[in-house]
């Protein structure tokens, strides 16, 4: 379970999140929709611990424990995961090495033995098959020369391998064609589980046809303006932000 309480965050002198509160119980998928500049990516970055944001008020609790003072890797070890809107290209770093380093760092932090090559490979091969990723893919440098769709699929592959208990998907649908979108959504749906929750950030209702949310929130002007079920997303698609949330849009 993740609880975000009255969160205020600023970048330099600009307040982006202005008292955002949100609770996602285990096993639920919540979607956040909102216009440009609403604070969606800021929320994703603040949850995962990126530098450059000042939290002036409020808290983020993960299974009852505050994560605000934790480094990004400590949050990852607890089971947080962020699927990036723009996955970063890292020349010279082999994708397989990266994935294995990440998984073993998490295992080590949680007192588990590091995996040997064969065990690791078994986990990765399964995930690759699920996501229709070719064998030679992981021989390449992290995200270097990947198409938009490949980058997003690699994000979901990392999520499957690292097996988080809470995942934030930051506009994972952006830049995807319909086939890639289906593969990515299936990859997410496979992980739906009573012990795992998701926060799906998106501009468009389309993604939610494939990843069906339990709850939909509308974020605008740094706060949750409206909460409803999946029909709220359909209403938004039909009427637009102005009509649904008024001035806050």
């Amino acid at each position, binding site marked *: 379970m993740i609880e975000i309480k009255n969160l205020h965050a600023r970048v330099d002198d600009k307040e982006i999140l202005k008292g955002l509160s949100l609770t996602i119980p285990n096993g639920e998928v919540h979607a956040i929709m909102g216009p440009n500049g609403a604070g969606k990516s800021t929320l994703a970055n603040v949850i*995962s*611990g990126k530098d450059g944001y000042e939290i002036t008020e409020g808290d983020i609790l993960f299974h009852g424990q505050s994560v605000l003072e934790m480094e*990004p*890797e400590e949050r990852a070890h607890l089971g947080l995961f962020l699927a990036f809107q723009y996955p970063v290209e890292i020349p010279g770093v082999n994708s397989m090495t990266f994935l294995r380093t990440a998984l073993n760092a998490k295992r080590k932090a949680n007192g588990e033995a590091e995996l040997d090559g064969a065990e690791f490979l078994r986990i990765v091969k399964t995930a690759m098959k699920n996501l229709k990723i070719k064998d030679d893919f992981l021989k390449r440098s992290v995200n270097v020369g990947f198409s938009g769709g490949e980058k997003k699929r690699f994000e979901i592959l990392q999520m499957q391998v690292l097996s988080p208990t809470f995942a934030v998907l930051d506009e994972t649908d952006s830049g995807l064609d319909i086939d890639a979108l289906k593969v990515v959504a299936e990859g997410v749906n496979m992980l739906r589980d009573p012990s795992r929750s998701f926060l799906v950030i998106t501009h468009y209702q389309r993604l939610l046809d494939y990843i069906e949310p339990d709850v939909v929130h509308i974020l605008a002007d740094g706060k949750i303006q409206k909460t409803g079920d999946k029909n709220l997303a359909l209403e938004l698609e039909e009427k637009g932000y102005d009509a649904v949330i008024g001035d806050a849009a």
Partner: protein
Amino acid sequence: MTLIDTLKSTLADDTSANAKLFLDNGIPTPKIEKWHYTNLNNIMRTTWPFQKASHASQQSCGESDIRFFDGHATVCSVPDGVTILAEREASAHPILQSMRTQEFSKRDESLAALSHSQSTPLFILVDKKVEATLVLENFSMLKESVNFPHLCIAVTEAASLTLSSHSHSAGEAWSNILTQIHIANDASLTLMNLQNERKDTAHTSHTFIQAEEGSALNIYGMNIGGSLGRQTIDIDLNGKNIQTNIAAANLADGKQTQDFTIHMNHNHPSCDTNVFSRNVCRGRGQSVFQGKFYVAQQAQQTDAEMSCKSLLLSDRARADSKPELEIYADDVKCGHGATVGTLDSESLFYLMARGVPRKDAENLLVEGFIEEMLTRIPDDATAKIWRAHFAAWLAATYEG
């Protein structure tokens, strides 16, 4: 007396042009353009008595084919088609003889001239159409000494030579290495130089290459050890259609200075050149990259690209980069790019968000940065060895 004073008094009676060039100019100072960023003061100030090791007794070569001990060559094995020539035989070979009698004239070549005047070269001839690999080691055993390994190599028509060399030392020495190479028409040369001297050793190497029409040059270098590591590569492209690929890495830590200075003269049309440089500096380490493409008026359709990236890992680290183009032809494609920066914060966050601790994430990024250079080395076994040396460098914290 400082080492330089001692050297000068030793050479006082030597009337050769090369000795004279050194006597007149001494050790290059930062006032000389090619040595602007690399200060040789520490070598000058050392008070070692100038010791030139006498001929080392026949030593084993370990896993190498040829080992230089304190500048003297021991040849243990030579592949078929490769001949080691005695001085008398070499004098009958016009190309090798011209190397033996070469007179350096530029002020910035005074160290090459010093080496030339003080050394007895090892002459290597690679026969026509032969494909040969030589593994070479430079080792300085004698403390407080200067050594002058010197190679003269002729790679004849359509032959191919791969020369892999590794320089290391027992410490407190100065290796001043001279290599002269001629690559005949359609021949190819792959040169791989790993400098990993002990931290109190200075290493200056001077490689002069004359390449003829249709030849191919692949040159890889890494400076890791030594208090000072300087690899100078001077190439004259004397014919059409010569392909050159160079990749170099400097790793500077503590108070080290690591330097690659590459000068290429494109004298004929249709040569393709690529120079790739990677530098990592931490502590108070300094890296230097100087690359110059000269393109003569008749060298049309030259395609030459130079890229240099430097990574600064501490506040007191320093990277000097000087890419230079001097072009007199009007139908060429020449470019250069240089960047200096710290680790990319977005990349760091990406790795940390996946659970990789900060220090490991930083190391992974530095590894990736150097891997881009290592991956260019066509010989996997050599790349693997260099990768291991680099990993040890990355894991160590350096004092001094």
